[in-house]
């Protein structure tokens, strides 16, 4: 142990102080008594979780008000607040306020609340899936969920399937096909020895291509001109269809899923350390993976059903949360959903105000933010791409 104790002294003082850690050879090459760079010795800096969470919650509340205040039909802020107050307290309004009230209370508020719910759900399941496949570069959609849901949604959009369900047809169909897709991935990836992370990712990716091909085939065989546009809008995600009807179901599922994951936070930590470690700490990795798979399927299925496939939130936000508060899941699962909600509220505001009255798909903005961030992360984590054991 002596050489370990002295090691900081051996490291040349100030040697390459600013150099990045580089590929993590150092972390895997064992019994290397000489430190690579001095800053590696420093304790990890972490943002305190409670103040951060309180700050995010406050920002989220404020953003919800902004989400209601901004829109293509200009209703000024004091009036928005008065209308909101009237809606919350059941106060009386003049007849000429009815149109504004309808816009604020029936269109913008459910939409903004749903954006927050969807953002929180995507971020929370992102955390779960990254622990599930033990790779910080995974997102909830690597398991084939979004492309699976797209098959169901497009069957409704293009061919009017499940017409008897009325306005719920797309949601129900997307939810059903998302679950079916995940079940298929699960069954295909399963072996006698349980689910291995790499098999899950590979199976999810392979089947995603299959589902996408099915969607493409449907788009081409549909006989109306708008088909491709409708399909694309749905794939990139939109909160345009939000009503008070969809908020309670979505919010309930997301909150229940989040509560479950929070209770499982300690076990998620163990799973993230590896299967052997997990088992030796009394957490059966296969059982936990099945559990996470089920929770993810329910939450993501619901989220996708109400908002389409909004990418990158489930990838970026968990990573961001880890950078701030570290890897411990009981902290990540507080920060990530709040940050996800906050992000999506603003992305939704941008999507409906930048080119108003036209509306851009939410997925465009998450991709604009997400792609560069993803590439940056990948460069930083060069060797982590194996993702296996």
């Amino acid at each position, binding site marked *: 142990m002596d050489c*370990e104790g002295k090691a900081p002294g051996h490291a040349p003082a100030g040697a390459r102080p600013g150099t990045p850690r580089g590929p993590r050879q150092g972390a*895997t090459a*064992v019994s290397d008594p000489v430190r690579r760079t001095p800053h590696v010795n420093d304790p990890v800096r972490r943002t305190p979780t409670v103040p951060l969470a309180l700050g995010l919650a406050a920002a989220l509340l404020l953003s919800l008000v902004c989400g209601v205040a901004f829109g293509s039909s200009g209703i000024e802020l004091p009036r928005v607040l008065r209308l909101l107050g009237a809606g919350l307290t059941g106060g009386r309004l003049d007849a000429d306020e009815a149109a504004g009230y309808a816009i604020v209370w029936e269109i913008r508020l459910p939409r903004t609340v749903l954006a927050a719910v969807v953002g929180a759900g995507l971020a929370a399941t992102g955390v779960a899936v990254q622990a599930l496949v033990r790779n910080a570069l995974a997102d909830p959609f690597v398991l084939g969920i979004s492309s699976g849901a797209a098959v169901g949604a497009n069957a409704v959009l293009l061919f009017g399937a499940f017409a008897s369900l009325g306005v719920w047809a797309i949601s129900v169909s997307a939810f059903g096909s998302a679950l079916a897709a995940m079940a298929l991935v699960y069954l295909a990836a399963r072996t006698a020895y349980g689910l291995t992370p790499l098999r899950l990712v590979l199976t999810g990716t392979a089947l995603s291509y299959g589902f996408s091909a099915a969607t493409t085939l449907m788009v081409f065989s549909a006989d109306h001109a708008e088909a491709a546009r409708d399909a694309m809008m749905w794939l990139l995600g939109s909160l345009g269809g939000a009503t008070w009807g969809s908020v309670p179901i979505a919010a309930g599922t997301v909150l229940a899923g989040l509560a479950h994951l929070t209770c499982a936070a300690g076990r998620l930590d*163990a799973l993230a350390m590896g299967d052997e470690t997990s088992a*030796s700490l*009394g957490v059966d990795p296969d059982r936990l993976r099945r559990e996470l798979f089920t929770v993810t399927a329910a939450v993501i299925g619901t989220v996708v059903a109400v908002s389409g496939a909004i990418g990158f939130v489930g990838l970026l936000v968990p990573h961001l949360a880890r950078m701030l508060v570290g890897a411990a899941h009981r902290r990540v699962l507080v920060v990530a959903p709040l940050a996800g909600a906050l992000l999506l509220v603003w992305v939704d505001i941008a999507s409906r105000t930048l080119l108003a009255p036209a509306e851009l798909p939410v997925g465009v903005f998450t991709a604009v933010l997400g792609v560069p961030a993803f590439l940056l992360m990948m460069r930083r984590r060069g060797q982590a791409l194996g993702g296996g054991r």
Partner: protein
Amino acid sequence: MTGADGVTGTAGATRTAGVAGAEELSVDGVSVELAGARLVHEVSLAAAAGQVVGLIGPNGSGKSTLLRCVYRVLRPAGGTVRLAGDDLHALTARRAATRVAALTQEHTAEFDFTVAEVVAMGRLPHRRGPGGPSAEDRERCTAALRKVRAEHLAGRGFLNLSGGEKQRVLFARALVQEPRLLVLDEPTNHLDIAHQLEVLALAREAGPTVLTALHDLNLAAGHCDRLYVLAAGRIAAAGPPAEVLRPALLAEVFGVRAAPVRHPETGALQLLFDRLP
């Protein structure tokens, strides 16, 4: 770890007293199958409370497989693993983890936990319900880190540690599990000689019964009370190191020519190796 050891010690005394003449750890006729292949054939071994028992054998002889069966990653295809009379595979995973801790060969992690967080995971099987480690848990973790002389690492990222540091931290995690049995799978792998000796000394100091797989036969000779030799999934020999590590057996099992000598100062058994002629 003083408090922790006290708890483990008393529990051990009362529980073993109930089982007449039983060993602390007894593996009875355990067979393990993986992908249809039988890797371990009806192996039986035993360890008395507090003993350090070594498992040696060439690569692929089934050492790790047998150990994985003891710390419950694998279920035996036949036979039982009993600790203080209880069948480990009949317990829930969590209860078993309060009795058996393992130092596996798994050293990589994708997520950068701090050392303190990694050690605190050892309290997971003892914890009920959600929420983080209690103040008492934290105290145990600090004590365990102090015991492995890694207190100064608590705030560091686990992934940035050297191999020796990682091994000590994982050792601390195993200690806070307060196990009756500590399973070590090649604990000296990739460590320099000073760290090798340190880890084995820690294992003996730690208190609980230890079952360890070792490649280095001289370390096995010097640090184990009893050795079991595995060859092709079967026990080839068992007994105190001086009885087991005979040239004839080593030639047969490892395919090497071994010359036993005595350490000039301590008189301890040392082996010198050559290829077989």
